[in-house]
């Protein structure tokens, strides 16, 4: 009680002085309301496929099983995918299995006689029905599982080509042209 009586008055005076000094400064601060900014960042999914070249020539020998293409072509597939994608597949296909290449005069080389060796694998004819192109006119070149660590990635398919003329031994001499399409799909 004696201490309180002894120091109580000076402390109270000091507090009042400090409050008097602080009061003018606090009166100058004015805050606005908080204005929110909605942020949205969209990272679009994408697949791009590029080819190292866009033309292949063949010097055919009648009835021969081995008519290799003039060059190999590399398909480079690059992707950035959503979490719900399970795999990415690359396909080669023709629009028509009966006439993959044609001389325009009714003589055709079917897709069954057109072969691709992918990344050094066995030569395989384009006889499957794939998501693109004609029925029985395609080939799946590769399938890449999409996991947690490759939602974005790249894959290369090095394609070598061959035309097998054994099944079409009566093909007349002519120039045969066609279009092979390469396309990727994530699903």
């Amino acid at each position, binding site marked *: 009680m004696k201490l309180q009586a002894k120091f109580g008055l000076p402390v109270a005076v000091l507090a009042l002085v400090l409050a008097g000094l602080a009061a003018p400064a606090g009166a100058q601060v004015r805050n606005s309301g908080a204005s929110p900014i909605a942020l949205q960042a969209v990272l679009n*999914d*994408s*697949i*791009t*496929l*590029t*080819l190292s*070249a*866009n*033309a*292949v*020539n*063949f*010097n*055919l*020998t*009648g*009835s021969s099983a081995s*008519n290799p293409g003039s060059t190999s*072509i590399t*398909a480079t*597939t690059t992707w950035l*995918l*959503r979490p*719900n*994608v399970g795999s990415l597949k690359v396909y080669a296909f023709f629009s028509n299995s009966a006439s*993959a*290449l044609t001389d325009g*005069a009714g*003589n055709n*080389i079917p897709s069954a006689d*057109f072969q691709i060796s992918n990344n050094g694998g066995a030569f395989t004819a384009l006889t499957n029905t794939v998501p*693109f192109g004609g029925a029985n006119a395609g080939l799946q070149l590769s399938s890449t599982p999409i996991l947690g660590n490759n939602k974005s990635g790249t894959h290369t398919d090095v394609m070598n*080509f061959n*035309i097998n*003329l054994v099944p079409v*031994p*009566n*093909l*007349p*001499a*002519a*120039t*045969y*042209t*066609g*279009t*092979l*399409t*390469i*396309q*990727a*799909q*994530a*699903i």
Partner: protein
Amino acid sequence: MKTGKFLRIAVAVLAMTFAASMASAQLNSGAQTIALNANLTESLTLNLSANAVNFTLSAGSAANPGSTNITATTAWTLKPGRTAVGVYAYFASAAAALTDGVGDNIPSSAFFISDNGGASTALTNTVVFGAANGGLQLANVAITGVNKTGTRNDVMAFNINLTGGTLPQLPANTYTGTLNIQAQATP
């Protein structure tokens, strides 16, 4: 009842939503094309199993067979429009198919070929190659839609008949000559 109907509708809506979700999960790359150009050039080749035949002649004899048969193998890959392949045997001179070089000759009319076991026939016709009256057509293959590419064998057996004209008086000597075999696709 109402609860069951509502449940069925809810399941259907969920299924459609799931299907739509799966469809939207599919992502395709752009289609990249490869132009294919395959050239099957026209060809007509003729190969012989041997390139020499010897005869041991008997003066005035009708039968002086060659030492060996020779097989002519003709192979072709033809353009549309060709209708025939002919195979011909001929000499450059009808009067001197074989000669001793000093004026004594064996004419082509005394030289006979039996083709594929057929009758032995003298080279007295004017064919598309060689001298007038110095040839023989061995074969004529009709070209249709089924044999634009093909092959054919002509097995030739040879004989020199020394009975005609002044040939029985042919002097002893070595007589040499060149018989040519050639094929032609027409038109």
